[in-house]
C-alpha cells in the first residue's frame, strides 16, 4: 500500500480507568490521549461509550499489545478485523503496536517476547506489517521493545533492524525512550549510538515510562515515575526529532492525574530546552 505518515506535535497521557472521570468531566490539559487497543476491541457496553466521549474531547492514539507482529505463522485475521472496526469507530491519531511476538500457533503468551534480528525475522515482520497496514487501511507505528535476552543468530543491531523495517514497509516508529535505556543497560548497548542509528524521520510518537531494578536486569515495569537517566536520554532524543506526539506511559501503581501532568510538563519543557534537568528527579 502507498504509505504516508501523518505528523502531530503535542503532549499526552495514557488513558487509564482511574482517570476516566477526570477526562470525561474536566478539561485535562493534554493534546491527545492513548488507549490500549484491546481494551476497546469489544462488541459494546460502557468501555466503548467512554472512548467515544473522550474522543469528542481529544485526539486518541491506539496502542496495541496483542498483534504479535513477529509471529512466524502470520497474523490472525479475526484480530485485524476487530482492530479495523475500532479504527473506523474512532479515527485515531496513530495506530501502534510492538516489535515483538506474543503468539505462535494456538498459544498466546500475552507478553512482548523478543525477536532475533535476522534477515528471516525481517522478512516475517515486514510481511506481517504490510498485512496489518492493508487490513486497517493506514500506516502503523511500531515500538522498540525492552528486552532481557539476546540471540546468537542476530546479524544486525536493533536500530539497524528498525531502519530496514521502516524502509521496507513505510511504517513509522513509536520510540520508547525507557525501552532504549532498559535494553541498553541490560545488553551493554550504546544508547547514544541507538539514537543516532534510528531513522529519526520515521518517529511519530514517544513513550516515557519508569522501570525497576531486577536482580540482574532492569525491568520495564511502568509502575513508577520516569527516571533521571531516561529524562537525560529523552533530552538528547528530543533535539534530534521532528514533530512528535510525546506521552507519559503509566500502567501500574497509577498516581493522581496531577502527578502525571507534572511529568508531562517536564517533557514539554525539556523539549523546549528550558528545563533544569537536575531538578527532574
Amino acid at each position, binding site marked *: 500500500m502507498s504509505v504516508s505518515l501523518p505528523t502531530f506535535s503535542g503532549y499526552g497521557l495514557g488513558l487509564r480507568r482511574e482517570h476516566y472521570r477526570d477526562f470525561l468531566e474536566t478539561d485535562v490539559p493534554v493534546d491527545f490521549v492513548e488507549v490500549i487497543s*484491546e481494551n476497546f476491541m469489544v462488541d459494546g457496553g460502557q468501555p466503548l461509550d467512554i472512548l467515544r466521549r473522550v474522543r469528542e474531547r481529544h485526539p486518541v492514539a491506539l496502542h496495541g499489545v496483542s498483534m504479535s507482529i513477529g509471529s512466524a505463522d502470520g497474523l490472525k485475521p479475526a484480530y485485524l478485523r476487530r482492530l479495523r472496526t475500532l479504527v473506523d469507530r474512532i479515527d485515531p491519531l496513530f495506530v501502534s503496536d510492538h516489535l515483538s511476538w506474543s503468539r505462535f500457533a494456538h498459544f*498466546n503468551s500475552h507478553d512482548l517476547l523478543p525477536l532475533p534480528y535476522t534477515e528471516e525475522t525481517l522478512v516475517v515482520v515486514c510481511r506481517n506489517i504490510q498485512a496489518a497496514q492493508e487490513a486497517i487501511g493506514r500506516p502503523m507505528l511500531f515500538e522498540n521493545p525492552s528486552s*532481557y535476552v539476546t540471540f546468537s543468530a542476530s546479524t544486525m543491531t536493533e536500530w539497524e533492524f528498525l531502519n530496514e523495517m521502516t524502509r521496507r514497509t513505510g511504517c513509522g516508529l513509536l520510540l520508547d525512550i525507557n525501552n532504549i535505556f532498559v535494553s541498553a543497560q541490560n545488553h551493554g548497548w550504546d544508547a547514544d549510538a541507538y539514537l543516532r542509528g534510528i531513522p529519526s524521520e520515521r518517529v511519530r510518537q514517544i513513550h516515557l515510562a519508569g522501570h525497576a531494578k*531486577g536482580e540482574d*536486569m532492569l525491568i520495564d515495569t511502568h509502575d513508577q515515575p520516569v527516571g533521571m537517566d531516561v529524562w537525560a536520554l529523552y533530552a538528547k532524543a528530543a533535539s534530534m526529532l521532528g514533530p512528535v506526539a510525546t506521552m507519559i506511559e503509566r500502567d501500574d501503581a497509577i498516581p493522581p492525574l496531577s502527578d502525571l501532568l507534572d511529568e508531562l510538563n517536564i517533557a514539554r519543557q525539556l523539549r523546549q530546552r528550558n528545563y533544569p534537568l537536575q531538578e527532574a528527579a
Partner: protein
Amino acid sequence: MMLADMQRDFQQWLVNADDGAPLQRQLASSLGLAAYQNNYRSQLVSVLRASYPQLLSRMGDEAFLSAAVHHIDHHPPSSWTLDDYGMDFRQTLRVMYPHNPDLEELAWIEWALSESFVAPDATGIAIHELGDVDWDHARLRLTPSFRQQLITTNVVDVWSALQEQDEPVEAEMLDAQAGVIVWRRAFSSLLRKADPIEHLALLSLLYDGSFNAMCDVVVEHLGETDGVSRAGSLLADWINSGIVVAVDVGD
C-alpha cells in the same frame, strides 16, 4: 535458527517451566530469561484475580493462588485478548473442588457479568410500542448480553453478600436446581434468580425464539388459563427489564 522453531521452543519453555535447554542454546545472553517466565505467570494470575474478585474473596489468597497456578499449568492462554483467559477457570474449580459446586457457580456468575458488560448494545422496546402484533408468528429477541445457567447451590445469595460486603453466607445445596440469569441494561450488568417456569420459558426463547413455543412450555406446566396468564406477565416483565429487546414477526 528458524524463527518458528525459536518461537515453539520459547512457548514450550513458558508453558512447561523447565530448564528450557532448546531455547537456551539459541541465546547469546540469557541472564534475563527468567523475567519472561515471571511476567507470563504473574500476568495470568493477575488477570484471574481481576476477573474473579468475589471468588478470590471467598476462597482466600492462598487457595485462589493454588487454583490459578493449576489452571495456568493446564490451560495455556490462546485467545487474542488476555481478558478471555479466565473463561475456562470453572473447569479447574470443578476438578479441584468437586464437592464445592458453589465455587464453580460463583465463577459462572462473575464471568457472565463480565461478558454481559461488553456484549453488543441493544435498544429495548416499550410495551406501548408493540401495537398490533401477530402473536402466533411472533419471535422474541433476547438482548445479546443475556446469559443463563442452572445452579445447584444458594450461590446467588453468596454472591450478593460478597458484593454488598454483608455478613458471609454459608454455601448450601438447593432442594432442586434453579435458574439464574444475567443481562445488561444500559451500562449495568444485572443478575437475578429465575424460578423453574421462567427459566424453562427463557430456554425456549433462547433456542427457538417463538412466542407460541414459549407459551406452550408454560401452559404445559401450569395449565391453559394460568399458563397463558403467566406467559403474558413474563413477557411484560422481560420487556420492561430489557431482557427482551425486540418482537419480530415472521414464519
